Every structure is written in structure tokens, then in C-alpha cells.
């Protein structure tokens, strides 16, 4: 007779299982929410198809499809991370679902793991779609190591972007969260050079981009294909880490307010 979940004793195996279980349930609930799943999965693919495959910039250079592969990849993990946390969290809190979950023995870490995990799954699906489009429709050729490094760099974006979503979700009410997340999502994508090369922005906006996590992640992804602005890796990592830490501090403050209510 297989043991049933409630007979398991707390421990590492138990935590992993419950985290995976929560991931699966959150994934299924996200999948059943077309307003989340469809744009998250299709927007980056459609944008890429439009800008890199159907109307690539002229000349014999392949740089545009490769550039956009990296940046729309980052865009592709930005959406599930920031929406999943920002809107999803605000929703569950305001509907009382979060309070309910807190009464269960599930550790808080499993909940966070599941949210990040769902964003990573959506991100991975977008990466698969984008990479196939790039490789087989846009003519992008990368060395094997570059394909893996690019996928890794893009997927790593789940962490800083989730932190942004967490900060928004911890503070904004459900309706406000949708607006705030959309604003941050669109503005940061454009100003970070995810939709078109950052070099096309005026100088002061290029400087401003240093304040945006998506810019740093974009540059790290572009570095894999040698199309970045040439700033050192450590600079991007330090700034990205600092920005993520700030988001986490802001989020923690928001949760304390929620708990104390």
C-alpha cells in the first residue's frame, strides 16, 4: 500500500514533494487562466515572428534575429514571473486563498518555490518556442554551448523578475496590481532594450536603463551571443543582485503589513 501524503512526516523529502505538488497545482491553475497563459506564451513568439522572421532588418547581417532572440527570451520570462507573482499573489491574498494556505502545514518556502517554478516552466516553454523559431525560421545559428548558455541566462531571469512581482503583489491591491504590473512590464521591456536595440534609445535613457533589472538580464543574455554593449559581467550581476535585494526588502515589508492586519 502506497502511503498517502498526510501520513508523511516533515523532512526534506516531504518538503520537496509538497513543493512539487504545489508547483503542479499552481501550474494547472495558471494554465486554466487563459488571460495569463495565452499572452504569456504567445506574445513573445508573435513579437519574434513579426520582428525577426517576417520583417527582419535589411542587409546580410543576422544580428537582428539573434539580438531579438536573446531579448524576447528575457521578455518571455519577465511576463510569467512578474504577472504570476504580482497579480497572482495579490489575487490570492485579497480572495483569502493565501490565508487558507497559511493554515495548512505547507511551508511558506514551498509556495514561493511553486510560484518561481511555474514562471520557470512558462519561461522554458517560451524558450523552446523562440529557439525553434529562431533556429528554423530566422536562420539563427549558435554554437551548442551558446544555445545552452542563452537558455540558462534567460531562465535565471525568473529570480529577479519574481522578486519584482513579489514586491508589487505584496503591496498593491488586486485591481491595482494588474495595472501596476502591466505598466512596469511594458515600460521596463521597452526601456531595457528588449523590443529593439537599446542603442536606438537616447543617451539619457540608456543611462537610466541601468536602474532596470531587465536591462541587466538582457545584457547578460546578449553577452552570450556577443551583441551586448560590452559592460563587464560582474557589473550587471552586482546591479541585478542589488535590485533584487531591494525588491525582496520591499516585499518583506509588505508582508509584515499584511500579517499584522
Amino acid at each position: 500500500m502506497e502511503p498517502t501524503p498526510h501520513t508523511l512526516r516533515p523532512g526534506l523529502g516531504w518538503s520537496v514533494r509538497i513543493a512539487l505538488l504545489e508547483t503542479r497545482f499552481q501550474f494547472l491553475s495558471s494554465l486554466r487562466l487563459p488571460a495569463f497563459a495565452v499572452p504569456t506564451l504567445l506574445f513573445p513568439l508573435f513579437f519574434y515572428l513579426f520582428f525577426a522572421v517576417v520583417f527582419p532588418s535589411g542587409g546580410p547581417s543576422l544580428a537582428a534575429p539573434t539580438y531579438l532572440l536573446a531579448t524576447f527570451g528575457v521578455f518571455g520570462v519577465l511576463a510569467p514571473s512578474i504577472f504570476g507573482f504580482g497579480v497572482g499573489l495579490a489575487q490570492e491574498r485579497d480572495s483569502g486563498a493565501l490565508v487558507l494556505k497559511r493554515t495548512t502545514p505547507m511551508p511558506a518556502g514551498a509556495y514561493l518555490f511553486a510560484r518561481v517554478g511555474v514562471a520557470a516552466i512558462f519561461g522554458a516553454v517560451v524558450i523552446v518556442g523562440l529557439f525553434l523559431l529562431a533556429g528554423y525560421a530566422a536562420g539563427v545559428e549558435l554554437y551548442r554551448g551558446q544555445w545552452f548558455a542563452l537558455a540558462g541566462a534567460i531562465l535565471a531571469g525568473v529570480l529577479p523578475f519574481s522578486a519584482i512581482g513579489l514586491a508589487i503583489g505584496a503591496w498593491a491591491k488586486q485591481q491595482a496590481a494588474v495595472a501596476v504590473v502591466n505598466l512596469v512590464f511594458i515600460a521596463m521591456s521597452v526601456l531595457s532594450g528588449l523590443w529593439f536595440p537599446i542603442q536606438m534609445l537616447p543617451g539619457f535613457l540608456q543611462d537610466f536603463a541601468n536602474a532596470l533589472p531587465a536591462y541587466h538580464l538582457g545584457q547578460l543574455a546578449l553577452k552570450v551571443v556577443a551583441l551586448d554593449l560590452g559592460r563587464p559581467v560582474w557589473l550587471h550581476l552586482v546591479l541585478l543582485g542589488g535590485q533584487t535585494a531591494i525588491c525582496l526588502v520591499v516585499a518583506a515589508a509588505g508582508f509584515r503589513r499584511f500579517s499584522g492586519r
Partner: protein
Amino acid sequence: MGSPERPPWRRDPLFAAVALAAFVGVLLMLPVPEPADPPGGPLPETNFAVVDATVFDGEAFRAHRDVWVEDGRIRAVGQRLRLPEDLPRVDGRGHTLTPGLIDAHTHTYGVALRDALRFGVTTVLDQFTDPSLAARKRPARERLARTDEADLFSAGNLATAPGGHGTQFGVPVETLTGPGEAPDFVRARKAEGADWIKIIWEDGSTFGADIPTLDRDTIAAVIAAAHAEELLAVIHVSRLEHALAALEMGVDGFVHVWADDVISEADAARFAEAGAFVIPTLSVQLAIAGESMGSVLLEETLAEHVSAMQRETLSGTFPRQGGTPEAALESVRRLHAAGVRILAGTDAPNPGTGFGISLHGELRLLRQAGLSASEALGAATAHPAEAFGIEDRGRLERGRIADLLLVAGDPQSDVTRSAAIAGVWKDGFPVEAAWAAPKQPE
């Protein structure tokens, strides 16, 4: 449920593993670039691409560039060029591709042009040679064809006084005795095919000698006559005083830096303002002072790559030594800081220098004089081409002749890598003789 079904939490790790495997599987099946041949084997010709090299384009180093050569000219330089599938490729990773080098001060004879080309010097700006030799070599620079010689541009004969510097080499020289002869002299040089006019102002005093030289009026008249014929006028001086006077006369460039005195910053600014260029020829300045780089260059180069002539001239010493290389270096430093265009030239084959090989030494000396790696390489590529009005060379950009130098490593961080030659192309044809299979000397 008939049979006992595995509970969902049992299946989750399996799903996760399968999903991860599928993800990795997709990454493994994505297209990778066509395999490129590593440099070292036979190099492709006429139509090929060097892919994913660091490119020095004449101004700056740019990482991960492809250079596409078509019919002996550069068709495109860029990132991730869309290359025809059957185009031969050279793997440029770990290598740097530069325009073929230009030595802005040599004197051509013997195997000079072959020696130059073997060392990546694809164009030579000669500052005095037998005009008939220059005329014989001229057609080669007008066509794209397989060759084992660098292209030659030359002043041909030079303007000097009877018995003056330049008359001692056995080449018959038509000398000048006064300003009135200048227009005819320049027209005769132009008729011979001179690409510019070279003037000697050398009284030997820097080297403890007394040599007859042209007077100021004649020098000014030759400069004016050259300009009237739309030719550049460049001048040999070895004294700062003469350089400043020639600058006043409107000379276009200096084929040596003077070694008697260090230029002041104010005077350096005057050079910059006048737009005059300077070819310091530090290689020969060091040799004159008895500090030639010749032995260093010989030591670090495989013996089979060095011709008998290169070995002989690199090992040579000047009979009469003088000048201070420190002063020359400091003058170059100040000229460069003031914004004066500095060009790389060796004055090969003077004692202590060798055709081709010494230009790699000159790049190091220019670094010592304060030029950055890209400025030093620019002084041996784009800048001499522009200063002497030679089109189609000196830069890696669309339409230019495919004169290319491929070196292993990164000359930007270590300029001595310019001599780590992995391949040379002239007019799109590889010059492999010395590097792949050393040729027997004839």
C-alpha cells in the same frame, strides 16, 4: 480505480525529469554554424569568410565579427553574417583579423616586396627607390591577382642637393641647385610616375657629419611645385629646427622624427593644426643610436621565415651612430598627445631593420611612445592609406581590397601578437608560402 494508481505526488519528479530531458533535447537539436577550418591548414582564396574573429577594422577592435571576402574584395563585415552554405570558412575564434599592414617608409630593392608580404605588410609606401623599379611594380597594384609581393607606392627619386643625402646609394639622382629648378624637377618626377615628392633636408649635424643639403628657398619651391602638380610633399629632416621651418613652408608630412631635440607641446600643437603627419621610423632611430631591435626580432622569429636579406639587414649596424631614441620617443609622445597623425614606418632595409618584420617592431615602439594598440595598428593601416590618399586599403569594410592579416591572440592587450601570424591574404589570395610550407630561397 481498478488497479492501485500511483498517487500524483509520486509522478511529479518523473514529470519534472521528462520535461527537463525534453527541454535539453530541444536545445541539442538546434542548428549550429557550419564547421569552419581552423587556421594553420591551407587557407581559402578569393571567396571565403573568416568567422567569429576579433576584427581590427582600421580604427577599433570589434569582437566576434565575420568578414566575407568575394572576388578578392571585402563584401561584408558584421556580426553573424548570413553566409552561403558552401562558402569556405576560416574559424577566427581566438584570432584577430586586421587589414594588411602598410609600412609608410621603406626603400625597395631585391626581395623587399616578398619579405614584406610574408610578414603581413601588404602595401609598402616607398620613400626613395629606382623609379624604373617602381614603374615595373605599378601594374600589380591595379589588379587583383595571386602574387607573392606587396604592392608598391613610391616617391621614386628624391629631391636633394648635389652630393647630398640620397646620392650615396648608387641610384642615379637628379639633384637641385636652386628654387628655379623646382617646377621642372617635380614635373619630371610626376612623369616618371612618382606618387608623391620626397625632399631631403639633412646637413648631417645630428650625426657629427657635414653633408651638402638643399637651401630653404629650394625646399619651399619644391613643396610649392609639388602642390601645384597636386602631389604630396614629404620631407626628411633630422633636426627639430628644420622640421619647424618645413612645417611653415606647408610640407604635408615628415618621413622621420628628428632625434636632436624634444619638441615642445606648443610646437606639437602647431603640427596638429597644420594637419601634417609624422612617420617617426623609431625602428631606424634606435638602430642609429646602436639600440636596434633587429636581434630581438630575429630571435623570436622562426629561422625558415626569415630571408637571407632580412637576416643580413636586421643584424647590420650603422657605421656612425648618433641621436637619442629617448628624445625621439618623447617627441612622438607629445605629437601624438597633441593630435598629430602618426604613421608606422621602418626605413627598412637600413642597418638594424628588415623588410616586413620590422613593422611589427615599430608597432611596439609606437606603443612605447604612448599610442594605444588600436592607434598603433591604425598607424600601420587606415591612417597611412588616408594620409597618402590610397583608396581601397587600410580598413576592413565593404568594397576594400581583401588584404588581410590573421594573427593568433589579441594584439589589443599584447601588441607583440601582431607577429603571431596565422595567415596573410593579398587581393584575397593566401600568402602561405612561408608560414605553411617554407619555400626554398631562389
